[in-house]
C-alpha cells in the first residue's frame, strides 16, 4: 500500500488485512520499488497518484517495465477523478482505479473483479 498519507495507508491496509492479506506500506513510489527490489513481490499493489519523490503514475510505469513483476496487479487509489487521468493510469498499466473517497465495500468489490478476493469472503 503506497501513499504519502499515513492515515490513508492505515485505512487501506486495515481493509486488506481484514481480508487476510499481509500488507507492507511505503510512503512514495520509490520506496515501493525498493520493497519490490528487495524481493517481496505482492499479488496486489494499491498506489496513490500524487506523492513526493516518485508519483503513482511513474511507479506504475516502472513496475510495468520490469518483466519480473508482470504478475503484480496494480490498483490506483487516488483523488484524481478526471476521465483523462483514469485513461492515463490504465494505459500505463494499472488494472483498476478507485477514486477517493471510497468505502471498504468499494475495495472489496474491486478485489472481487480482479479475482483477488480470498476464498470464503462473501460480498
Amino acid at each position: 500500500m503506497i501513499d504519502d498519507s499515513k492515515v490513508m495507508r492505515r485505512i487501506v491496509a486495515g481493509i486488506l488485512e481484514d481480508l487476510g492479506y499481509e500488507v507492507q506500506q511505503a510512503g512514495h513510489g520509490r520506496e515501493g520499488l525498493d520493497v519490490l527490489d528487495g524481493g517481496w513481490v505482492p499479488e496486489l499493489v494499491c498506489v496513490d497518484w500524487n506523492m513526493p519523490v516518485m508519483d503513482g503514475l511513474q511507479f506504475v510505469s516502472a513496475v510495468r517495465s520490469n518483466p519480473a513483476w508482470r504478475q503484480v496487479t496494480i490498483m490506483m487509489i487516488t483523488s484524481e477523478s478526471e476521465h483523462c487521468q483514469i485513461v492515463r493510469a490504465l494505459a500505463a498499466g494499472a488494472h483498476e482505479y478507485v477514486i477517493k473517497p471510497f468505502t471498504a465495500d468499494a475495495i472489496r468489490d474491486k478485489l472481487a473483479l480482479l479475482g483477488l478476493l480470498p476464498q470464503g469472503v462473501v460480498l
Partner: protein
Amino acid sequence: MTLTATSFDWVRALVHKESAIVLQPGKEYLVEARLLPIAREKGLGDVSQFVENVRHRPDADSTRRIVEALTTNETSWFRDGDPFTALTSTVVPSLLAARGPNERLQIWSAACSSGQEPYTIAMLLEDALPDATRRVSITATDLSRAMVERTRAGRFSQLEINRGLPAPMLVRHFTRVGSEWEVSAPLRRIVTAKQCNLAAPLPRMGPFDVVYLRNVLIYFDLPTKQAILRGVRALMRPDGWLFLGAAETTLGVDDSWERVAVGRSSAYRPLKGK
C-alpha cells in the same frame, strides 16, 4: 424518541399493503435509518413523530415516500458477476442463433433500483455485439418512481461508480458531468425505464428473452412469490432465461421452471407443458 411499536406496525402494514414486502420484526433500525432523512426534510426531529403525523393524517406523497424509502436497496455494478458472465458466454449467443437477423432481444431488469443492473447488461452487450443498439432492448423497472427517474437519467455519484464498475468500462461508457458520471447516450437508448409494482398485476410488456429478477423474491411471502413467478413467466418467451439471486430459487415455490447450470451460475427456464 425511538420508533414506537405502534408506529413500526403501521409502517409494516403500509409497506406490505403497497408492495407486498414483509418487514420482519427487528427491522425497526431500518425504518428509522431510511425514514430519518424524510422526517428531517419535513422539519421534524424524529421518525416516530413523522410516522404518527402520517398515520393520523395520511397523504399520498408521504405514504409513497415511506414505501419507496423502505423498498429500495443499495446496489452495485456486476453484483454477483456470474449471471452476467453467463449472459454473454451462453445465453445471448444461443438466443441470437435462434432468432431472425432483424429480431431484437428483449431483456427485463426487474427491480432495477438506480440502474446499475440494466446498464451493466447494456455495457456487456455493447462490448460483445457490434450492433447492440439494433439487436437488444432492455426494460428496467422499479417500484420507486425516484429510482425510475434515476435510471432514466443514467447519472451516478462517485461513490456509486466505485462500487464494482471496472475502470476500463468506466472510461469506455461514461463521461464526467460535474461531480457525477453519466452513462453514454447509446446505452441510455438501449435501456427504457418504467415504474412497475411486481406485487400487482404486471403491465403488458415483453415478451422477454431474458429476465433478471435478482434479490427481490426474498422480500415477499410465499403466495406473492408464486404470483410474481407466474406473472413473469407469462411475459417470457418459451425459450427464455430467468436469473434469480444466489439465495433465491423457484424450487418449492413454483414447479413450472427448470433449473439449468450456465457456467458458474444457475438460470431457470419455463418448463414446457406447465
